[in-house]
């Protein structure tokens, strides 16, 4: 289900905001040239909140141990391995929409996500 979650101006350039959902927090990123990406707010390493990291190019550095995550694919860049889950985004004019996950069909439990303790 596509859902309008805000406009591009709500997110600082090279920054991120969080959408809280039943399936867990989703981090929505804005790059320097105004591209928008979304990932579950959970680092594949130890669950750090990616929304709190430094955005650079099309990547974000996790605030906990500095793994770099590709915003487009969710892949971990560099020497480490892993993958953060991506969420489909559309940008129409200023308006950002996310394809909200259907909680029932998720292959992980909401409880799992809670353990990451990510905050708005």
């Amino acid at each position, binding site marked *: 289900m596509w*859902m309008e*979650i*805000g406009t591009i101006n*709500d*997110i*600082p*350039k*090279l*920054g991120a*905001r*969080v*959408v*809280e*959902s*039943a399936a867990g927090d989703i981090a*929505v990123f804005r790059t*320097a*040239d105004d591209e928008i990406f979304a990932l579950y707010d959970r680092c594949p390493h*130890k669950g*750090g*909140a990616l929304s*709190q*990291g*430094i*955005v*650079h*190019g099309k990547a974000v*550095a996790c*605030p*906990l141990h*500095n793994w*770099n995550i590709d915003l487009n694919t969710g892949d971990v860049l560099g020497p480490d391995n892993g993958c953060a889950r991506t969420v489909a985004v559309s940008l129409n004019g200023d308006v950002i929409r996310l394809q*909200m996950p259907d909680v029932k069909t998720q292959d992980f439990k909401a409880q799992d996500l809670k353990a*990451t*303790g*990510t*905050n*708005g």
Partner: protein
Amino acid sequence: MKEKLVVIGNGMAGMRTVEEILKHDAERFDITVFGAEPRENYNRIMLSPVLSGEKSYEDIIINTREWYIENDITLFAGDPVTVIDRDAKTVTSARGETFAYDKLLLATGSDPFIIPVPGTDLEGVVTFRDLDDVNRMLDAAKKGRNAVVIGGGLLGLEAAVGLKANGMDVTVVHLMDTLMERQLDEAAGYLLASELKNRGLDVRTKANTKAILGSEKVTGLELDDGTVIDADLVVMAVGIKPNVTLARQAELDIARGVLVDDQMQTSDSDIFAVGECVEHRGATYGLVAPLYEMGKVLAEHLVGGNGVAYQGSVTSTKLKVTGVDVFSAGDFSGGEGADDIVFRDASRGVYKRIVVRDNKIEGAVLYGDAKDGAWYFQLMKDDTDISELRDTIVFGQAYAGGVQADPSAAVAALADDAEICGCNGISKGDIVTAITENGLSTLEEVKAHTKASASCGGCSGLVEQVLALTLGDEYEVQTVKPMCGCTSHSHDDVRRLIVAKDMKSIPEVLQELEWSTPDGCPSCRPALNYYLLCAHPGEYVDDSQSRFINERAHANIQKDGTFSVVPRMWGGMTSADELRAIADVVDKYDIPAVKVTGGQRLDLFGVEKKDLPGVWADLNAAGMVSGHAYGKSLRTVKTCAGSQWCRFGTQDAIEMGIALEQMAWGSWTPHKFKMAVSGCPRNCAEATIKDFGVVAVDSGYELHVGGNGGIEVRVTDYLCTVETEEEVLEYCGAYMQLYREEGRYLERTAPWVERVGLDHIKAHVVEDAEKRAGLYKRFIASQEALQEDPWAERARGGKDKHEFTPLKVVA
């Protein structure tokens, strides 16, 4: 008795000759040097970066006063020789010193050429030759706006760019059609002119100066087409002429310069000459490489070498303007029988032209990418037959013979006699030998042993490649370690350039210094943000997206994504009201844990991010502000009970600690900064493992610096003892500012102190009251802009609201 050698001219050629003589036989001569300039011998070619602010005078001194003493050389600096008496074999100086010589060396350099137009003697008309000229220009840049440089050659352009870096509006007036016409062809000259125009210089070619205007002080310049250009400063940089005043007085043979033979001997067999003042086989020179060759030949000749002869030099030039890569060598006028090989890449702004005659390189002009200059120059000097390389030669050495591009492969492929350092004529073989024989491992050591890269520094990259090839894995790039993968500049270079080019924002730095990534990375962006903040206090607008989360959210992120909050408790003191307010906050926001920290504060753990503004508002209401426990900034000042309570206390440690903390809170530093004050040498506050520690004694306060707890424990170094509380504050502020200005981002004071040395810190903070006062003043000035409670701005002021609220909550 030793033979007496008198040297006239304490400049580059004269002193290089002396160094060469000492190298061969330090005991041979009793040496006396006269210099017209009132200072030691320095690297004249680096005056350009001194003007632009990229280097300081101290950086470019070649031989210090101590060096003269150690080598038993008598130096009369600031005392020019006025008379040579060849019959009596004596020289006499302006101050009236008369000295006998057995051998005399003339190394008087050259004088700037002054064009014969009215107004050249007005105040504000200067030349570009020595440090005094540079100081005059810097002074003028402080007072005036408009500068005109007459002459678009190497010297004029370096002056123009330097003045621009000092904030002046600069016009270059050049007589010929294209800039640097003696070194560059038309195409390269054109590219250079457009680059300089892009940088905001006004470049006018085919412009002939008619008069310099003004009554006492210069006000402008008139061209012969009638145009008038406003000017507060006019720099005359149209060329040089050999300084032959003394030679003429002594009736030596002269033409354009002092005539010398292949042994550098003048028409008097006891008088020799080297440098820009000489004329040899009809040629005069204005670059250092030939002068060094002359010095080498003469030194060998003087210590008894047989059959050495100076054969004249082929020269090459490089323009020393950061970010403009220009190289030229040989003859590129082309003409009959010469072939041109040309390569252009307009989008990268690259132009290369190699002129070939009879399968040999006759000349080369490179613009935009000059890294192969040394290679072409070597092929040219060796008269190498290039027919094999011809197809790919224009792409440079890495492609020679179709080999893949790998810079170290290119250096590996160089022959042992290939020249690496053009200024000093040092070959690859010389460097390799020096490295293996003396066990060298850093660029600095190679510089000290061989002089490679010690003059213009343009070859330091190549020297490093040679080091890496020779040492293999043992070699760690040290001196020019880049800040991060986005750039080849080191932390120190970037800082210097930020100040020198007056850069004001991160995008500007990335653009100007040609970052390889569009918006930097998590290691350079926070560093740049700090460097800019430090360089432009009160003016630079902090870029929160370039801050690590803790500094962006003003609290410490914990492993579960919650935050911890540490309110400031000045000097570790608190009160019933503060404690009550903290207890209320803990209850109200359901904060799961409260802990006493190592720095005498209370840490509230497990605060949800969205609760932070509310928590801060309540703490603010009770008078508490941010404790900056999250920042590369002043953290805490820990104190002991001191004379208020303790029976051993000699001074009031608590009061001292509070005063320090109130002065220093809110400051950003390269890394975290901790202090402590103990009331007596029992040192209960553990002041000797802090960045700045105070230990009170009967007579006052001992100050200690550079300590560290943490992973690598380091005990402080003792700095000095002061008597009053005010002095403690001033010394502390000055020391913090020195660290703020010199420390590399994420370098704690302990490694910084070890890197720069305690003597350096003493020289700035203890021994020189003026320097200390200056540092302290800059610290206080920057504090005025920084001492604003970031919590209050966010709690009540609503700053960065997006940081603490979700974009959307979907049920």
